[in-house]
């Protein structure tokens, strides 16, 4: 579990009595953000009719996220495009940088994903109450349910609503941690079985690397699309 350790880089920084030192987690957050900014800035700089590779990359990502938002949350979600875009890119790049050997995976820490999820949860709730007032509470009362079942359903709905940030954060965190742990375990097998028996876990490791890259993308996508779905609930109140 050494790869998940957080350690201080540089001096200890204290804000009052709180330790906010620069750690390896912070380093990889900075690296991911900088990579996103550099790639997309380069992609957005040139304004040619026929895009080059970086421009194509940035424009394709832009239209990908835009399509995802308009498919799940409709046109009302347009003002939140840039937030969801940054969220998706941040999670994606953190996941992907985590795939580099010896790198630290920011999203494999429950606190990071939980802060993101809690921010989304609180933001979505605020947006819902701002758009619909107290009518937003109708989200917990699905239509077409018999009166007898209603109290039970409302309780279940409230619990499911409140567990959204937890499920959202744990999904990402657990996926990332499990993948990296599995790769570590298979790597350990390679060492302990040596040159004779190590080939099988090694090939597993190779396959797992591909799978993990897929998971890294998929989890970022799931994170973003669930955010869109929550936003859709807040904006359109379908229940």
């Amino acid at each position, binding site marked *: 579990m050494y790869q998940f350790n*957080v350690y201080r880089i540089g001096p200890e920084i204290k804000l009052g009595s709180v330790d906010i030192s620069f*750690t390896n987690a912070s380093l990889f957050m*900075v690296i991911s953000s900088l990579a996103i*900014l550099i790639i997309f*800035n380069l992609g957005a700089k040139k304004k040619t009719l026929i895009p080059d590779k970086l421009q194509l990359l940035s424009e394709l990502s*832009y239209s990908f996220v835009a399509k995802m938002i308009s498919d799940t949350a409709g046109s009302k979600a347009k003002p939140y495009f*840039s937030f969801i875009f940054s969220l998706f890119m941040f999670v994606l790049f953190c996941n992907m940088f985590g795939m580099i050997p010896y790198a630290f995976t920011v999203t*494999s820490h429950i606190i990071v994903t939980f*802060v993101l999820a809690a921010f989304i949860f609180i933001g979505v709730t605020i947006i819902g109450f701002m758009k619909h007032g107290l009518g937003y509470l109708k989200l917990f009362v699905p239509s077409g349910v018999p009166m007898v079942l209603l109290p039970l359903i409302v309780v279940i709905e409230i619990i499911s609503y409140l567990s959204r940030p937890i499920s959202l954060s744990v999904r990402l965190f657990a996926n990332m941690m499990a993948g990296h742990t599995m790769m570590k375990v298979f790597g350990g097998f390679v060492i302990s079985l040596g040159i004779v028996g190590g080939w099988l876990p090694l090939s597993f490791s190779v396959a797992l690397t591909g799978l993990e890259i897929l998971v890294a993308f998929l989890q970022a996508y799931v994170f973003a699309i669930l955010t869109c779905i929550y936003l859709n609930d807040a904006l359109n109140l379908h229940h």
Partner: protein
Amino acid sequence: MLKKIIILIFVTCLACFNTVFAAESGGMPQLNPEFWISQIFWLIITFGILFIVLTKVILPKISDNLETRKSQILENIETADRQKEESQKKIDEYEKIILDSKVKAKNYFNEAREKILDDINKKRAALEKNLDEEINSVENELSEFRNKSGDKINKIAAETSAELIKELIGEEVNNSSIAAIVEDQAKISKERKDVI
């Protein structure tokens, strides 16, 4: 044998797990709250900066790019359509001109032909008329001449026959009866000639 191998693999796996996790006591580092505040702090800073820069600087540029591309492509398609229409119009005009000129050329040709034919006909008619006139006059002259010559021949024949008779018989015969005979003979010969 198979059982043995399976047991062996199981034991090695256990041993591996032991060696892998032996050094790591203290459970998951994720649940160690020592750096939680620091992670939250840096997450807010990095994500905040990323969000602000993307929103204010980069995403508008990209959307601008996409918009201009879209509008430019639409514009280009429009101009292409317009030019196509124009070229079609030009082609139509060209074909019309060619058709017109063909018709005109045909007309010119026909006119010229008619004119020439007219001219030829007129000239021929004039020529024929001249020819007819000449033939007529010549025929007239000829017939006149013939008529006259007939009389003269008759006279000469009568005179000659009278003199011949005088020489032969030594007696003068009535001139008028000789002339009548000659005339008769001439008529007969003439009739014969006509029949022939």
